[in-house]
């Protein structure tokens, strides 16, 4: 058994969306449903059923438990298809549109790293399935993507070990779609000047009666 601090695969995605979100979920244990996550759950229902079987001649595993001792990761894969020679082909299900950064890719690569360790096979590609457009987008496991993912794993582990909560993201557009916005209160944190002013006036009142 490795004694690496285990992190959830989902933490990588949370971190790449917003490091504060990652800390709130994985340290502060805050999780709040909103329409986005509820829609996400619904999209995942089939996937989470844990059914497996043969579809279109391929063996398919749903909600497959994943782990990597080398990287200290645990989690689940939505869907993994197995090619004829036993090589796993991970497919990440997404309800929304394609994300700008590499959130989805990172998630997929991390799954692939686990699968490689679990099966001993080398994985050349996987896919991201977009629920809305019902399209599959093939992602090649390039050395650059692998390196990016490995770095991210290190960064996430460092953050979680530090027990610090990073400040809110400066990309405020992200907050609008963030399920944690109520608990995170990015505006509160940003309102340091309001807090300072209130603090200086806390013990005095205008003396009208």
């Amino acid at each position: 058994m490795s004694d690496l601090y285990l992190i959830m695969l989902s933490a990588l995605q949370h971190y790449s969306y917003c490091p504060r979100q990652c800390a709130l979920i994985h340290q502060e244990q805050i999780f709040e449903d909103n329409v986005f996550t509820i829609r996400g759950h619904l999209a995942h229902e089939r996937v989470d059923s844990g059914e497996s079987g043969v579809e279109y001649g391929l063996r398919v595993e749903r909600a497959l438990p994943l782990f990597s001792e080398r990287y200290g990761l645990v989690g689940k894969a939505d869907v993994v298809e197995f090619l004829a020679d036993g090589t796993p082909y991970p497919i990440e299900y997404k309800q929304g549109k394609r994300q700008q950064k590499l959130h989805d890719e990172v998630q997929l690569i991390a799954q692939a790293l686990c699968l490689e360790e679990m099966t001993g096979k080398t994985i050349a590609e996987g896919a991201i399935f977009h629920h809305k457009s019902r399209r599959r987008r093939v992602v090649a496991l390039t050395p650059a993507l692998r390196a990016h993912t490995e770095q991210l794993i290190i960064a996430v582990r460092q953050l979680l070990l530090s027990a610090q909560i990073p400040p809110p993201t400066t990309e405020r557009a992200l907050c609008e779609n963030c399920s944690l916005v109520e608990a995170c209160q990015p505006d509160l944190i940003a309102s340091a000047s309001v807090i300072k002013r209130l603090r200086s006036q806390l013990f005095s009142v205008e003396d009208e009666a």
Partner: protein
Amino acid sequence: MRQLLNTLYISTDEAYLRLEGETLVMSVDKVKRHQVPLHHLGAIVCLGRVGMSPQLMARCMSDGRSIVWLDENGRFQARVEGPVNGNILLRQAQFRAADQVDKALMLSKCFIAGKLRNSRNVLMRSARDNPNEVEREQLAKAAKALAINLRNLEHAESAASVLGLEGDAGRVYFEQMNTMIKPAMRNTFEYKGRSRRPPKDNVNALISFLYALILNDCRSALETVGLDPQLGFFHEVRPGRPSLALDLMEEFRAVLGDRLALTLINRGQLQHGDFDYREGGAVYLNDKGRQTVVRTYQERKKETLQHPVLETEVEIGLLPLLQARMLARYLRGDVETYIPFFNK
């Protein structure tokens, strides 16, 4: 802003609650009395002898809906807790802060500053509504005294002096209780000095019950954000005492409790017949009185106020949760200081 979900208060003795599809069913002696959809319920509070099915409990836990039992007078008895609860790092920070004298002192001052400011508001509001000049001046004088204590609070250098200032302000404030009650109501509602266990007049019975409801809301708010309601900064730690909930409650006594008590009294919503007068002098709200108070309390929680830090209108019922969250943020080093809730 997050919607305030309803709290369901069940005060019917021998009521039994169970899950039926997406609804909660309340029955007495196996006869169905009420049925409410679950999705608008944020919490269930059982007052007195109320039972519940394990299926309903499990469902509420997985939805993050809190369940507590209080006795008839609002005192905490039990609570159901789900598998994931709280954050050990936050509790660690809370315990460490409680051991740091200056941090604990600073927080105590904040809670009490909130209390004094809000109490003072109640006095000034009553002064505005009072047609009697002499009484008006009396109330204004008390408000001034509270402002002085508030100013001195800033410079308090020990827990003992915070306690002293708070005690003194409380005395000044409660001395005005009868003045804040309308003359026509003073026969039925005569405040004879603070008495808790047991309350010895109608006014004490009423505010004690309201404080118990507020305390429960503060306790639930702290538990929701993962703080330990038993380890406070101002209130001394004693086994069985929710001292952090008592700390947090200081900001809300006046806003949620005293003002509401005065409204209930002055509008004639409560009468002599809403209380039980026990042999030997103890006074409690009876069933009918409790129902009126709980209903009005629920309505009050839906009203909105301007939040000084968030600078938006927030429902009064959300205040304990918002403040608990800000306290958690402060303890985890996310914001520089804690600001209590106060009315502008």
